[in-house]
């Protein structure tokens, strides 16, 4: 296979497999936050703040995968 098509396939695999983990992670975070919110609706402020913070950490990994895919398509 020629390098051009390998680059496209590589970019697709990079972002496809790279978004799996963070997707599941963010879902788990949301589940935990909803559970906590259901048990203690008064603690809405700290729960939301910490949930957004943790989601940012998880999303950063997906962004790394996106960077690799963009690099493959536009720079390599």
């Amino acid at each position: 296979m020629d390098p051009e098509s390998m680059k496209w396939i590589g970019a697709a695999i990079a972002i496809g497999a790279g978004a799996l983990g963070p997707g599941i992670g963010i879902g788990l975070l949301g589940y935990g936050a909803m559970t906590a919110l259901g048990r203690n609706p008064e603690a809405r402020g700290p729960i939301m703040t910490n949930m957004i913070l943790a989601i940012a950490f998880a999303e950063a990994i997906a962004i790394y995968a996106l960077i690799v895919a963009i690099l493959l398509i536009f720079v390599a």
Partner: protein
Amino acid sequence: MARLSRWQKIGLITLVALLLLVLGCLYFPVPKPHVELAPEKLWTPGGFPITNTMITAWLTIVVLGLLCYFATRRMKLVPTGLQNVVEYAVEMLINFTENVAGKEHGRKFFPVVATIFIFVIANAWLSLLPGFMSIGFWHGEGEEQVLVPLFRGANTDVNVPLALALISFVFVEYWGIRSHGFLRYVRKFANVGRLFSGVRQVMRGHIRSGMGSIFNGIIDAFVGLVEFISEVVRIVSFTFRLFGNMTAGEILIFSMLFLIPWVAALPFYGLEVFIGFVQALIFCGLTLVFLVIAVTPHEEH
């Protein structure tokens, strides 16, 4: 023509708009968007390259400066107008900082954290205005002419998030050292106290307890090393989180604009506004959290 009802007017206008859209797509073909990750250099006066993201960052600084100048020109005790808006933003930021860091630390950390937030959000939102990435110069000749835009969002250049990440790293270390003292702060990362006391015990003759202490000491030292590495890797993660989000958003809007002009990009502009706000909040929030971790007193065993 009989009087058209309101719904009929809306239907007619929609039909005309769709017809114009289809005709435009057929008769005015649009080239594929050209995307470059590295910022393009526009001029190099005296060997110093000026890129388009640099110009946009200067524009952001000018806009923020003018905003603050006009908000504080004739200050009243009960604020109205622009002063009210700016005071609202400052009050939100200081409430956020004090909620996370406590009252006295919050007041100390407020300048750095608020500056990072305001700079990132101003860069992100300014790059959504019309004129960014569309007004520029044509480089190259003939078929391969490429539009080099004059303004490009400053967060899409790796250097700007890297600079902010380095600033946040330096301030985290500075405040950690200032609140703990240099030696105690370094001891958090080079945790060899138990290792050396274990070696001293072995040399004095208590072999068994000495070996236990040496073992625990090695684990402590390893944990300290991992913490130091995670401090440094934080720079990389901050940089690429902001850069990746902003660049991906810009490329997304580009692709949508070249797909169906005007229409397809509208929801993505809304998404970009939200993402700009969230990324600024994340950057300053994470800096704040790491600052709080760095200044909390290390509990003794």
